């Protein structure tokens, strides 16, 4: 099943490659990976989505936790959480008809058109990965998708729970 692992680590050179290394060395999949410094610039927060059963996920979290640069690891899917992903998607808009249809779908999915060119729109949409998939599928029915880029999932636990040093 899909799991979202959240990692708090030192914002140090090589830290990311060590984490990715754990996945590749031990044969685990990475479906998406999202990483950036936190409000405290000495720390980075990383979110990995992967497909794994309970036994494998236990090993993954333990192996990641074992890395010297890692402060905290949690499996967000264990409890209530919020998750979001952002996608930028560029679609062809060569006719009035297509433009109208794309606009309608942008409204329905509460997306935003952030760049307009003679022949295409670039749209920003956020939500769960499922919503992003659905939006891309809908667009593909009425026009051609030129390219898309997704950030990968990032998430936080609901309520008081938090990953802090």
């Amino acid at each position, binding site marked *: 099943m899909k799991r979202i692992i959240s990692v708090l680590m030192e914002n140090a050179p*090589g830290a990311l490659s*060590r984490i990715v*290394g754990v996945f590749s*060395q031990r044969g685990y999949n990475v479906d998406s990976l999202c990483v950036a410094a936190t409000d405290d610039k000495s720390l980075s927060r990383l979110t990995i989505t992967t497909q794994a059963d309970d036994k494998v996920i236990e*090993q993954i979290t333990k192996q990641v936790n*074992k890395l*010297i640069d890692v402060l905290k690891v949690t499996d967000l899917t264990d409890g209530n959480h919020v998750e979001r992903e952002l996608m930028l998607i560029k679609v062809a808009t060569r006719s009035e008809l297509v433009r109208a249809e794309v606009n309608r779908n942008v409204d329905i999915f509460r997306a935003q058109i952030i760049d307009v060119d003679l022949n295409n729109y670039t749209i920003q949409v956020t939500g769960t990965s499922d919503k992003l998939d659905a939006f891309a599928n809908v667009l593909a029915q009425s026009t051609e998708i030129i390219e898309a880029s997704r950030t990968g999932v990032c998430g936080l636990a609901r309520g008081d729970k938090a990953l802090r*040093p």
Partner: protein
Amino acid sequence: MEMMSGAAMVVRTLKDLGVKHVFGYPGGAVLDIYDALYAQEDVEHILVRHEQGAAHMADGYARSTGTTGTVLVTSGPGATNTLTGIATAYMDSIPMVILSGQVPSMHIGEDAFQETDMVGCSRPVVKHSFLVKRAVDIPEAIAKAYYIANTGRPGPVVVDLPKDIVNVLEEHPYQFPEDVTMRSYNPTLKGHPKQIKKAAKVLLDAKRPILYVGGGAIAAEASELVTEIAEKLHLPVTSTLMGLGAFSGVHAQSLGMLGMHGTLESNKAMHNADCILALGARFDDRVTNNVEKFCPHATIIHVDIDPASISKTVAVHIPVVGSVDQVAKQLLEQMGDVDSNKQKEKLADWWQQIEQWRGRTCLNYKKDDKLIKPQEVIQSVYKHTNGDAYVSSDVGQHQMFAALYYPFAKPRRWINSGGLGTMGFGLPAAMGVQMAHRDATSVVITGDGSIQMNIQELSTCLQYKLPIKIISLNNRALGMVRQWQDMNYKSRYSSSYMDSMPDFVKLAEAYGHIGIRVDHPDQLDAAMERCFAEKERLVFMDIQIDQNEHVYPMQIKFGAMDDMRLSKTERT
């Protein structure tokens, strides 16, 4: 504050950390550091003949002392040559620090001469690594490296030092770091009290308990505590290949090694136990055989300092994260006074059963009038060293014979590459041992295959006057490969023999040592006598043994722990 160059800081930090020996090989990127070494006498440098040898020497040094071994090599090939040695240390959790030179910072990434991404290359086989970017950071990086290497679950740490930051011409303020703790690194040493309570209860209630001890007990210096638990509860004790010596192999309660080539009594007792206390062992595939069939009746208590080792292969019932010494102490406290007679009485049936298994004397073998048996060679080494030598081993049949026929009464006496199984480990490891214990007897048990993998170090032995005793079991073949080919490949000896063996006696002599060839069982005792009488010189014993001897007992693939072959014809 004292001003000095980056190179001087490297050496000064080593001195301030109490490092006495560095095993290494110079080259372009570390010439500044070598120049700094030249100017002092606190840190002794041992010049090896190949960087892999340096890593194994540091490893043997660490295993026999418990202190961290140190390696110093240049960038590129110097660094990559240590990788097998680093991986060997990593698999067996041995503390080691590798100082590797690197091309100047401004040339990193340019594919400069002798450039390698050492931090990247070594990443999967190190506990941690540092690429130092400023000279002033050198003391802290090195001090942290030693701290990380020898705390928690020990392991190798790489410190990569670009040439520009160790430049002897630029001086910087030197400050030895007072504190090297890190917010992201806090190994758990004490067991959780709740788990200790549960474990103690299960242990006291058990009718067929066994203590399964591994290398973690040696790393934690917990031999005495392990013995105390075993004696208090009158437990049978079995040991992994890495744990030999943690509990005395000559103790009446010792069942010897377990696993693939373990004794019958060990594997039987494990399989039939109702409670297994695993202290610093990791249930690896060379122990468990088929995990599906592993010890079906046992409640398993697993004590390990590394949470990731727990339930990795075998799901355990009572996990305890902590170091073996701390947890052993806690267990002893929790159990309080145990009526020793009552306990003995309770385990009487269990011990009776174990004695029956012991009665099958699984280590018996047939001697021969003309051919030397490998087992008798090991027994002869035991006799001539009074069982008190440091024994380093290479990898193969001889390693298993040594593990089975040389019982170790003390920890840190048995030095072998258990996890990675590195041929070529034995000789350099024994050299590291001898550097740390100049007056002790340092023996290498090796074979004609393994010894040729780092034989160049015979030259280093002469330079540093290391009177190592090399016991080479020469069967003119890669014995363990040949054994498997006998068992599984209809004796088709694909690339498992060498028909161009050197004259090892002449070879030893060419390197300035003594070589002795032994062909016949009748010569063995006298030859050993002569070998161990040579206190000042290295002796290379080229012992021609029976080529067809197999290592038994041996677990049968896919079976339970106790499904074993006892000889070429007998099974359990």
